[in-house]
């Protein structure tokens, strides 16, 4: 009888891949607390107080405190900028929390990957190429490209939604991409000067791009996992397939 083989969780496999790919581009792995202050989760990221923009993210609030369970890994960007001078290249994969009803595509906790690059010269063109490099390597396909759609997030300006060519059908249209040939995969943009300022970076001298997306979503797409809740059920029927 063979010795029992252990298995890494698919999200751990994915995080390793992501760290390695961005490592090639010089991005370091940054971290921050999961139980975050309202300041780092919202205020420092240019969300006005009591504003509908905060409704875009369903937040878990901590009883008796102004803290929250972080709704995105963007707070890590601010913390990092406060303690490091540009040039900056970081990714921040981490667990985030959203107060939404759970179903096959929604869980109360999931993993996000955040990226930040700040330098004296940094543009949307750099962002586009960086993301294309990443997705090509992650899905191991050379014919993946990305496109931007105008959108809004308080911490970037311009803000965009990022679609990538469907890796399954290379853009021809299939079930994975609902026939469109494209998959909506991330949010991104140029870091808002208010965010740079709040973190102690001079917006007149430096610019940055930032992006963020769900790692669970990437894993579900790449491996064909049909229900996000399976990733947190502690179930070896899932884990031992990897």
């Amino acid at each position: 009888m063979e010795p029992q083989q252990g298995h890494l969780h698919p999200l751990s496999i994915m995080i390793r891949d992501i760290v390695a790919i961005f490592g090639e581009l010089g991005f370091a792995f940054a971290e921050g607390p999961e139980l975050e202050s309202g300041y780092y989760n919202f205020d420092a990221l240019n969300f006005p107080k009591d504003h509908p923009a905060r409704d875009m993210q369903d937040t878990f609030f901590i009883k008796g405190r102004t803290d929250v369970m972080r709704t995105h890994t963007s707070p890590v960007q601010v913390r990092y900028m406060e303690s490091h001078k540009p040039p900056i290249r970081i990714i921040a994969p981490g667990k985030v929390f959203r107060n939404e009803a759970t179903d096959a595509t929604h869980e109360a906790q999931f993993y996000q990957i955040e990226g930040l690059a700040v330098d004296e010269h940094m543009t949307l063109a750099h962002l586009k190429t960086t993301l294309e490099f990443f997705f090509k390597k992650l899905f191991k396909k050379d014919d993946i490209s990305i496109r931007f759609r105008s959108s809004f997030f308080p911490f970037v300006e311009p803000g965009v939604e990022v679609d990538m060519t469907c890796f399954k059908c290379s853009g021809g249209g299939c079930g994975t991409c609902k026939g469109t040939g494209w998959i909506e995969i991330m949010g991104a943009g140029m870091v808002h000067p208010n965010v740079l300022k709040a973190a102690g970076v001079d917006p007149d001298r430096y610019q940055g791009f930032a992006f963020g997306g769900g790692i669970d979503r990437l894993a579900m797409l790449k491996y064909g996992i049909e229900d996000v809740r399976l990733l947190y059920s502690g179930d070896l029927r899932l884990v031992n397939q990897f």
Partner: protein
Amino acid sequence: MKVSHKWLQDYFDKKLPDPKTIAHELTFKAFEIEELTEKGDDWIFDVKVLPNRAHDSLSHRGLAKEISAIFDLPLSDDPLRRPLSELPASQALSIAIDNPDLCERYVGALVKGVTVGPSPDWLKTRLEALGQRSINNIVDATNYVMYDIGQPLHAFDARRLVAKSSEYVIQVRSAVKNEVFTALSGAEYALTEDTLVIGDGHSGHTLGIAGVKGGTAAEITSQTSDIIIESAHFNPVSIRKTAQRLKLWTDASQRFQNDPSPELAAYAMRQVIDLILKIAGGTLEGAADSYPKKQEVYAIPLSAARVNALLGTSMIQSDIEAILKRFGFAYEPDAESGLIVSIPFERLDLRIEEDLIEEIGRIYGYNKIPAEMPPALAVKPAINKSFAYTSAVRDALVAQGFSEIFTSSFRPTGSIEIENPLTDDKRFLRENLSESMKDALASNVRNADLLGLDQIKLFEISATFAEEGETLSLVLGVANANGFKKIKEADSLDEGFRAVGTALGIELTLDEPAPDNLFELNLNSILEDLPDPRGYYFAPYPSDQRYAPISAYPFLIRDIAVFIPDEDSTSDLERLLRGAGSELLVRMTLFDTFTKTFPDGTKKTSFAYRLIFQAHDRTLTDEEATAIMEKITAALNAQSGWQVR
């Protein structure tokens, strides 16, 4: 928000592109079109306007402006650019604002002698296209102007207010604590002093919840003859909080909570008065406008250099000017920045150069942005200490046969409570990983046969939460299934524990057997004392995983043992098992082997397999399993020299 293609077409002399083209371009350059449906001879767009543009684009005029910029089609007549003449001052209506910080502007107008009745067909059609009910010509007119230019309006039956010395007073004030308000819908609400209301300044009666919903007290009916129209600006935070508190969200509150320009109120009042006089008759007695602090006018510098520095493009000033013209933004040359752009009153989102650069970029087209790799850094990226060591721990445990699980950070008990938990059993942040590990061991033990495992070995690395703070923890757990005795749980746990120590470069031993065969470790305190790692040294891991969905249906277990001659191999045996077992055989695990010499001198080996059957679409019956076993037995016995036991 729903908008009608025909209504949008009213804004243009030239014929608009077809709805699908408009939807496509808007989705890329302005707002996502979530749905496009044909409705009679019209097309209805369901537009997702995000919080940054909800103050000016929750209207047909807002969408028309976007279409104008995207397709370079000028508006034939922009309601927000028509000259705004002053309305005659009313002698019979005055406004009293108790809370000026909650109401920046209130325009009231008294129109006498209207005839309330059904709306003309064109107006009914317009409203019904958006899924709105036609109520009467007065109410419809106020709704029409709101959907047209984005300013919520309201009309009161003037005669239901008390006049003193022939004068009405509209009072904007706080509600009285616990007062009950009956909305036009008939629903009743208990108000708090946080709620801003519109009241009759003479009688004190509450006529409406400001910016949210009107009340029955001064409802427009077929008997109404004189009306007071309201066009105002209310504090967006107050409106948002009131709507949330009362769980009463309306088209009006949605617009007010996004803070439209107070300048808009005057345009809307002019437009709705003109419309009402046209379709309901009457005469304008006059208006009162309380607007103590006029909105500031903004001008923002814009330089081609800055545009290109942010977008990565190579635009020249004339490219930028061409786009500014499409928006109708006035601009002047400036020695320092190249251009100074005048910001129209309704665009409260344009305040810094980056805001304008986004306007330029999205109309220019993000698809035109070239490819360019970011400059490489001189230094290699720093190594994340925690990730380096936890990765080493993961690899060491996987090599020991432990599998990694992720479970919920929320538990029924803990010391840090969530204000708004999803469910009662997820009310607290977990203080330890052990409780989740216990649950996971138990549930995986139940599936041990399906997994083909005798011993379940699990680990999790995750944060735990206590008053003192957040801690990175590691938990290992071992559980034997089916009375498995060959390997002791405590021994496996100890092996795992030692392997963790080796990975961290320290010695870790369990001084006493761990209760429940699981052990939790605070990694933060250990990591603090470890040297900084020099790199990530991930153990090789297969990268060609294929995942098959897990069946929701129960599995059946059958055992089979067969003697096969030494010349034949287990791979032949397994091939036959798979063939006869079909796709319903989801796992086979060898659990026993022994060799026997028969009386005739032949040597054969018996192999015993545990077979697991499961379907993806149904519960397999015992009869089905028995039938498959018969097939398998026959297939094996058909082999020369093979003997099923």
